[in-house]
């Protein structure tokens, strides 16, 4: 157990102008689950790319020692041959191919170029059993859930005779149930002698499964903490990550709640493709002035669908129900009307639905309300710059210039740009869908501060999140959504994870 399987010694890797890794050391024991943690940009992914040969030998300095031997990987194939398999944050599966085809992609069970399908299928069945996935090998990837896809990735790794499995944020897109499943699988694999390196932002799960935790900050190794008894405290890890004590993950604010300003009544919607499937069933929610209302629910409960169908009917068919603002019914027939009525919706997927990545910070910020800086449809470039600059400093977007393309910003700053875009439209109701997904602790705190400032100025916020602590820490009131129905409404004082979980799972599996 105490034998070292991997040593990365004094790894330094520079990109033009940036030192991404600066003398990093990582020692992984055989058969352990080793967590790697750090803020976004701390160098975790780069380190793993060095290890797997994505950044080839020669492009970095330092040594990789695997089982006592120095390795000089030039390609991913060479590291895979020695049993190092990396599963990236963005899954590398082909949606239109079957599970079996994906698992043996590039590694086909074939003789002289002719695929042996029987062998492929039987082998896949064996592998799927190992990862506890009970679906047909011939199912297409696009037809199974994200959690199951993640398991397929692991099965694929197992097919390559993996010794050292690297998982880059495997649970970031999973709900709690799927996450637990995956973590239990890691523990199973550990029993079978497979070593894992786990990169994640979710401290709780790291503490639960890992044997030791290495913290990176600004491209340097800060420390490696032992966690044999799974009892290390979150605060201790956060302290290492940010280099300071975050006494409270959630900033304080004054709770100054007024009248009901926003109300959705008897809202129902059906699936856009299989129209007989009801996604939302008579949902009624409201939000008061200066209030943060949470919506909790498992994946597939209909949270995003609810938000998007309210926001200009951007999701679903046969939508029925009414939306009120200040007691008057408002028209949300399309996105334009919704924006005009003072609603804003921050999407859960900033890259696909929030930002125009190839466009500048400035153009992204003003996009949803260009009329404000225009006269007769002609944009006043100076007013636009002024508007963008003022938002940039108000919510502290870190960018060298407002003309920077948003693709070059870090996740947290990208999120601030999208948030800025909506703040710019001066909405009264902001629906925030996973506002802190995939961004680091420091940036999260800043986003929370912005949210607090908004409600203190009398806005109403509806916040959707998969992270229950976030909802508990931020919201005045939380609705639970389960299978398209509201199953509970809990005030801040009475809310805790257990209660929320109970309502969130109501009706599931029955």
């Amino acid at each position: 157990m105490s034998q070292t399987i991997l040593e990365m010694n004094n790894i330094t890797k520079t990109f033009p102008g940036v030192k991404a890794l600066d003398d990093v050391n990582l020692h992984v024991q055989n058969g352990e689950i080793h967590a790697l943690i750090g803020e976004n940009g701390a160098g975790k992914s780069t380190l793993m790319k060095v290890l797997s040969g994505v950044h080839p030998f020669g492009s970095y300095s330092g040594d990789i020692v695997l089982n006592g031997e120095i390795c000089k990987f030039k390609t991913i194939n060479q590291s895979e041959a020695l049993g190092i398999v990396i599963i990236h944050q963005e899954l590398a599966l082909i949606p239109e191919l079957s599970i079996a085809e994906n698992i043996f992609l590039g590694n086909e069970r074939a003789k002289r170029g002719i695929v042996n399908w029987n062998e492929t299928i039987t082998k896949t069945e064996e592998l799927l059993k190992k990862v506890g996935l009970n679906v047909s090998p011939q199912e297409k990837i696009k037809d199974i859930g994200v959690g199951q896809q993640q398991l397929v990735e692991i099965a694929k790794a197992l097919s390559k005779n993996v010794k050292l499995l690297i998982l880059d944020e495997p649970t970031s897109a999973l709900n709690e149930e799927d996450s637990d499943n995956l973590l239990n699988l890691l523990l199973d694999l550990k029993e079978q002698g497979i070593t894992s390196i786990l990169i994640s932002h979710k401290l709780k799960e790291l503490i639960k499964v890992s044997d030791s935790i290495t913290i990176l900050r600004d491209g340097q190794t800060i420390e490696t903490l032992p966690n044999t008894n799974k009892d290390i405290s979150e605060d201790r890890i956060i302290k290492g990550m940010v280099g300071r004590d975050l006494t409270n993950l959630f900033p304080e604010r004054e709770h100054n709640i007024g009248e009901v300003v926003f109300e959705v009544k008897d809202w129902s919607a059906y699936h856009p493709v299989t129209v007989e499937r009801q996604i939302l069933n008579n949902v009624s929610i409201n939000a008061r002035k200066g209030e943060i209302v949470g919506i909790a629910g498992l994946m597939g409960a209909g949270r995003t669908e609810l938000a998007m169908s309210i926001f200009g009917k951007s999701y679903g068919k046969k939508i029925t129900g009414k939306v009120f603002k200040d007691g008057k019914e408002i028209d949300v027939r399309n996105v334009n009307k919704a924006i005009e009525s003072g609603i804003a919706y921050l999407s859960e997927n900033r890259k696909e639905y929030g930002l125009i990545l190839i466009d500048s910070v400035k153009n992204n910020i003003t996009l949803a309300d260009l009329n404000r800086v225009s006269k007769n449809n002609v944009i006043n470039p100076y007013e636009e710059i002024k508007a963008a600059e003022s938002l940039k400093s108000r919510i502290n977007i870190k960018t060298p210039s407002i003309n920077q393309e948003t693709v070059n910003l870090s996740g947290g700053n990208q999120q601030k740009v999208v948030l800025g875009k909506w703040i710019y439209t001066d909405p009264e109701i902001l629906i925030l869908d996973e506002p802190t997904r995939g961004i680091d602790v420091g940036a999260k705190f800043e986003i929370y501060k912005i949210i607090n400032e908004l409600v203190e100025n009398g806005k109403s916020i509806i916040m959707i999140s998969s992270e229950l602590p976030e909802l508990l820490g931020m919201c005045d009131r939380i609705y639970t959504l389960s299978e398209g129905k509201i199953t509970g409404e809990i005030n801040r004082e009475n809310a805790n994870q257990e209660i929320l979980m109970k309502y969130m799972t109501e009706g599931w599996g029955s």
Partner: protein
Amino acid sequence: MDAIKHLLSENIRRFGMIIALVGIVILFQILTGGILLQPLNVTNIIMQNSYIIVLAIGMMLIIITGEIDLSVGSVAAFVGAIAGVLMVQSELSVFASILICLLIGAVIGAWQGFWVAYVNIPSFIVTLAGMLLFRGLTLVVLDGQTIAPFPDGFRKMSSDFLPDILGGGQFQLFTLLVGVIVSVLYIIHEIRYRRNELKYNLKVANTPLFITKLIVLVAVINIFTYVLALYEGIPYVLIILALLIIGYTYVMNNTVQGRHIYAVGGNVNAAQLSGIKTKKVKFLVFINMGVLSALCGLIFAGRLNAATPQAGNLFELDAIAAAVIGGASFTGGVGTVFGAVIGALVMGVLNNGMSLMGIGIDWQQAIKGLVLLGAVAFDVLNKNK
């Protein structure tokens, strides 16, 4: 030092194609023994490429929204044929005929835009169908025959010059005057622009750099009009082009509609969720392309002085090549009207230069193909750096 390097690499990307154009011009000027830049030939280059430039502008907008239009050549031929029927066979007035033709272009654009924007059929398919459809309809309208000749008033648009109202005899004084007027307008515009930027506390280029830029551009304008003046002066079609280039550049850079077109191409989902009517934007861009295709067909028919079934063959490829050489990307969201014009001129000068050198059409095609590939490869490699 880094700042200078940065400035240089930024500008190579921005001005890369202008530099390439200048390089090609110099190359052919040498290879043709000075014929390329003779006044007659410069006028020729403008007139020969006018209809491709018109198409390239529309194509740039189409490609910016992430779509493609393969039908523009056929549409141009079809509209040319209609123009022939209206003006030559029905003897309708020139003005009314042109209006009807442009309207037909708009209707064709709306037809294609409808399928692309509202029915969600890939534009490649819709316009491939359009390419066949309108080529076929051209043959139907013309009954396989050529219609000619067009009335003089119509031919003027594509092959005549502004009259020299100052009467300079051999030398077109009026053209020089136009050059001076344009220079003055340009200087006034630049100074006002700079003043505005200073008012809003924006960074501006330092005074010597600003003055150098003004001098260079004023020199270019006046040398250009001087060369034109040595021949017949300013062609009418150059005025059409200038209006289109200035107008479309303004729309794309300074208006809400222009910004929406870039946004739709950059990320259609994000644009939609920002309240932009993405379908309407695509629809309008196709209508615009239809109108410009019609204009192209009219200019071409006027220049040929005939409506023929073969008109506009492969124009779509020239227009796409011009847009791509000029910096458009098929992923959408990138490109400028000015770039499309430069791209069209690169292709135009290549055509003209090689023809002057007596290179056969066979090798011309092959070389143009390689230039297109090279230009895009250069851009891709530059971006990956």
